């Protein structure tokens, strides 16, 4: 097919692998934005989710954030942020902050929900036994609840990461770079090689991220649990 040929040609052209619009730089922008927003989201959402899960207080917050999250489309969130972030900084507020903040908003709820559910789902008998043994609340959280909740926690980060990588593509419509830029430029210039090259790169990055986290999760699972699933 013609599209396959032009896409392969565009991807193979060494000129597209260097310079300010080169694939390494755009890939770097995409990954950097995704990692920064994931880390910032995790720094807020994970401790909050763990604390709510451990104490059982404010659990309505988790439910409502999960619901609100579904009703907040990133396209609208990025757009809605522009008028406010441009007040802070006319340049970065136009090209970077809206996408960055929207990705933090996108990544937060899945991490929050899974941190909460992971800890809240730990067998209460285990927790009571630990308390009876004289473990402090802090010890219970870090030495018992967190290790047991680890697979659920990791699944939350994985789902946030895959969604951020995929959705950061939208940023290109709003002045941000990243791999979405090829799709915008390819669409605008009717350059199918560039358009589909961008689509292939973004899809490959999203699937690689998914595979990366699945592998990490396998390593993280405690040996006892891994043996149980294998048996």
């Amino acid at each position: 097919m013609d599209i396959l040929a032009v896409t392969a040609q565009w991807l193979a052209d060494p000129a597209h692998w260097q310079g300010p619009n080169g694939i390494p730089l755009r890939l770097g922008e995409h990954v950097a934005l995704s990692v920064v927003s994931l880390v910032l989201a995790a720094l807020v959402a994970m401790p909050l989710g763990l604390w709510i899960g451990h104490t059982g207080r404010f659990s309505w917050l988790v439910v409502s954030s999960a619901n609100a999250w579904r009703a907040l489309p990133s396209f609208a969130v990025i757009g809605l942020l522009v008028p406010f972030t441009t007040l802070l900084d006319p340049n970065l507020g136009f090209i970077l902050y809206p996408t960055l903040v929207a990705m933090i908003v996108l990544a937060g709820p899945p991490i929050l929900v899974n941190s909460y559910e992971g800890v809240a789902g730990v067998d209460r008998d285990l927790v009571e036994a630990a308390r009876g043994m004289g473990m402090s609340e802090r010890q219970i959280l870090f030495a018992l609840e967190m290790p047991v909740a680890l697979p659920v926690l990791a699944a939350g980060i994985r789902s946030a990461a895959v969604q951020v990588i995929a959705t950061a593509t939208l940023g290109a419509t709003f002045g941000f770079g990243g791999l979405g830029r090829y799709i915008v430029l390819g669409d605008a210039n009717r350059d199918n090689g560039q358009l589909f090259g961008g689509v292939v790169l973004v899809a490959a990055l999203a699937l690689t991220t998914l595979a990366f986290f699945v592998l990490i999760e396998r390593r993280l699972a405690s040996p006892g649990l891994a043996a149980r699933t294998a048996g």
Partner: protein
Amino acid sequence: MNSEPLVRWDWIGAHLGPILERGGQHLYLAVIAVTIGFAISFGLAALSIRRRRLYPFVTLLATAVYTIPSFAMFAALVVVSGLSIFTAEIPLVVYTFILFVPNIVAGFDAVPQDVLDAADGMGYTSAQRWWQVELPLSVPLVVAGLRLATVSTIGLVTVSAILGDRFGGLGYYILDGYHRHFPTEILVGGLLSIGLAVLADLGFVLLRRLLTPWATARAAAR
């Protein structure tokens, strides 16, 4: 831009007609996608229930499709199907699979075996059992799937604005406002599309109450 107020109410007042029209288009695009997506998903779910071994493949496929960014899929389809309604609807439809299929399968799985046996014992034919027992009892989870898919689709319709001013529903105002540095337009498009999603969600909660009167009665009796 600083001297101008954040919201120009006069602009909104002068554009009420077009705003309503865009809102209508937004709903229209979403309803088509959810309806077709539901029909296909129901078929996929029915197949998965009959042939259990197929279920993991169906889920894997739906997940893989969901991983492709909507923005990329819209742009890529322009080359294949031009600026037609298909280009807007195909991505919206295929993204609903991962939200519908697991919920429909779980909905039918949740019908207790005892109830099915009782229906058989009472002499229901398999068609009667399906319509009068299985379908009504699967409603809560099926409606949960409908809520998810509708809210997510209403959000994704905004992205179809990149296909030009014939698409995108209220998303058109987000993109146009951004290009023109006009906050009022962005706020109108963004807030109304979020509002539409919330309203649709509430609508389904109401629908579930109407379809499963026994659940409400039980909660009240408690």
